[in-house]
C-alpha cells in the first residue's frame, strides 16, 4: 500500500526543484482546429459554463438570501433578490448569540493547531528523512500504520482521556488530540528526502549540527511544502465538526464556528436570514485561501490529497 502512496509525493518533491513550473498542456504543440473542431469547442465551453452555473447557484442563492428580510426567505414565487438588500443581517449575526466568540475560537484553534502540526511534523520528518538512527524505518512504518485508524474509533476513548485530563471544554482539547497524526510527518519526510544530501553535507562539514542544518538549510528549502501543509492543516481545523461537537459542552465559551452555525437553528425558531449570513461569513476565510493559493491547488492535492481530508 505504501509504495503506491509514496510515488506521487516523491515525484512532487523532485518537481519542486524545477525553477519555473510550466503547465504541461501549454508546452504541447496543438494541432490547428478545423471548423468542426471549432464548433465542438464552442459547445464544450457552453456545457462547462452551464455546469459551473448550476454548480455555483446554491452558493449565489444563499448569498442573496443572507441579504433578505427573514419574512421573504421562502416567498412564492422565489426571488433571487429580496425587496431590499439588508446588509445589516451580517451585523445582526454578531448580536445574535456569541458569534464573535465562535469566530475567535475558530481562528485561535486553527492557527495554534497549525503551528503545533508544523513544528511537530517538520521535526519528526527531518529525523525520519535525513538522520540515521537505529530502528528508524520500523518506527516509521508503525507511524504510518496509525494513519489507517479512522477518527471515529479514536473519538470515543479520546473523550474519556479528555475527562481524565480535565480537558473537556478547553482549548487544549480542541488543539492537541488531532495535531499529532502521522500524516504531516509523512508528508515532510517525503519532501525532505528529495533535497540533495550534498547541500546539507557541506554545512555539516563546516561544523553545523543537525539543529542548525535543519533550521538554516532544510526548512528554507522546504518553504512551499510547509506552506501546503499549513494551508491544509488550517482548513481541517477550521472545518472540523465531529470532535469539537463531542468535546465542547459549553458552546458559549469554547464553541467553534461549525458548532455555532449548527446551533443557530435551535434558538427562537430558525432565523434563516441570519443562518445564511453566518454560513457565508464562515466560508469567507477558506474561499479567500483557495483563491489566493489556486496555483498551488493541484500541487497541494497531489501532496495533501494522499490522506488529508
Amino acid at each position, binding site marked *: 500500500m505504501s509504495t503506491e502512496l509514496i510515488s506521487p509525493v516523491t515525484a512532487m518533491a523532485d518537481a519542486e526543484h524545477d525553477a519555473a513550473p510550466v503547465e*504541461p498542456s501549454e508546452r504541447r504543440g496543438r494541432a490547428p482546429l478545423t471548423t468542426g473542431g471549432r464548433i465542438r469547442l464552442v459547445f464544450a465551453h457552453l456545457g462547462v459554463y452551464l455546469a459551473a452555473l448550476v454548480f455555483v447557484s446554491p452558493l449565489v442563492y444563499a448569498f442573496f438570501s443572507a441579504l433578505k428580510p427573514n419574512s421573504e426567505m421562502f416567498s412564492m*414565487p422565489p426571488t433571487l433578490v429580496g425587496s431590499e438588500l439588508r446588509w445589516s443581517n451580517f451585523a445582526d449575526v454578531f448580536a445574535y448569540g456569541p458569534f464573535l466568540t465562535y469566530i475567535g475560537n475558530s481562528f485561535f484553534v486553527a492557527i495554534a493547531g497549525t503551528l503545533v502540526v508544523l513544528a511537530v511534523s517538520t521535526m519528526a520528518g527531518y529525523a525520519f528523512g535525513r538522520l540515521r538512527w537505529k530502528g528508524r524505518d520500523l518506527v516509521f512504518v508503525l507511524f504510518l500504520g*496509525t494513519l489507517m485508524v479512522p477518527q471515529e474509533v479514536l473519538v470515543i476513548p479520546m473523550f474519556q482521556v479528555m475527562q481524565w485530563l480535565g480537558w473537556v471544554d478547553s482549548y487544549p482539547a480542541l488543539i492537541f488530540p488531532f495535531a499529532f497524526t502521522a500524516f504531516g*510527518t509523512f508528508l515532510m519526510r517525503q519532501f525532505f528526502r528529495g533535497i540533495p544530501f550534498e547541500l546539507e553535507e557541506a554545512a555539516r562539514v563546516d561544523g553545523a549540527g543537525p539543529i542548525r542544518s535543519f533550521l538554516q538549510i532544510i526548512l528554507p528549502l522546504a518553504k512551499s511544502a510547509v506552506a501546503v501543509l499549513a494551508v491544509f492543516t488550517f482548513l481541517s481545523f477550521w472545518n472540523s465538526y465531529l470532535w469539537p461537537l463531542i468535546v465542547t459542552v459549553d458552546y458559549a465559551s469554547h464553541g467553534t464556528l461549525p458548532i455555532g452555525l449548527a446551533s443557530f437553528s435551535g434558538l427562537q425558531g430558525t432565523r434563516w436570514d441570519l443562518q445564511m449570513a453566518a454560513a457565508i461569513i464562515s466560508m469567507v476565510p477558506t474561499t479567500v485561501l483557495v483563491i489566493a493559493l489556486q496555483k498551488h491547488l493541484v500541487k497541494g492535492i497531489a501532496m495533501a490529497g494522499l490522506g488529508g481530508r
Partner: protein
Amino acid sequence: MSTTTYTPRRGTLARTESRQALGFVSPALAGLALFTIVPVVLSIVMGFFNWPTFGDKEFVGFDNYVRLFTQSPDFWPALRNTFVFALLYVPISVILSLLLALSLSSRIRGRGALRVLFFIPVVTPMVANVLVWKMLLQPQGLFNGLAQSWFGVQLPNFLADPQWAMIMVVVMSVWQGLGYNMLIFSAALEQLPESVVEAARIDGAKGFRMIWSVMLPMISPSIFFASIMTMITSLQVFAQPQLLTGGGPGNATQPLVQFIYNQGFKFQELGLAAAAAWILFAIIIVLTALQFRAQKKWVHYEH
C-alpha cells in the same frame, strides 16, 4: 581498509546522530502515543465494558457486540444506510468528477477559475454547506418554489420522505465533494505523457476511443486512489445527514457514525459506541482490502 580506522569515529558520530534524532522525533512520538496509541488500546478495552460516561464500569465480555447485532434497534438500519449512501455516492461522485476533469481540458478558457469554483465547497465548512442545502430543500425552498411557479408541479417534501431524504443527502454530498476528485483527475490528466497521446492520435484514436482506451487506462492508478479515498470517507459520513435530516425521518438516513455518536454522547453508552466504532473500522479494512485485490483487473501501473 580505511574503514577499520574510520569505524570508531563513525560509531560515536552515529551515536550522536541517534541522540539528536531522538530529540527531533520525540514530540511526535509522545503525541502519537498519548493521542493515538492510548486511545486505540483504550477503545478495545471499552468495547468489552459497560462504560457509562459517569458511574461504574463493568466488564461484560462480548456483550456489547452481541447487543449491537441482536438488540439495538438502530444498528442494522445504520449499517444499511451507510452502505446505501456509499453505494450511491462513490460511483456518482467518481464518474461526475472524472467527466468534469475531462471536460475542463486545456482548450477551455478560464479553466483555472472554474477549477477554483468547483473546489470551493470542498474547503468551506461542511456545516455551512449543509445549511445552504437545508434552506434550498425546505418545502417552500428554492427547488419546490421554482417547480411550482414554473411548471405548477408540487415536489415531494424531500427531507421528510425516507427515500428522498437519502437521495438528497447523496446529492448534497456529491455537490460538496466533486471538486476534490476533479483536481486529482485533472492532475493525473496533465501528467499524461504527450508522446503516448500523440502516438494514439496518429493511430487514429479520437474522441471517445481516445478517452476510453488510452486516457482512462493511463490514469487508472488515480481513479483507483480516488475511489478508495472516496469510499473510506463515504463510510464515515456524519455531518451531512446529522444536520440535513437529523438522521430521519425516523432513522432512514442515520449512518453508522451518527449511530456511534448518539450511543456515546446522547445515551452515554461509551462501551457500546466503542464496539460499534470497531465494526466500522473492520468494514473499512475489509472493503479497502477487497478493492486492492480487485485493482489487478483494471489498474495499470506504468513503472
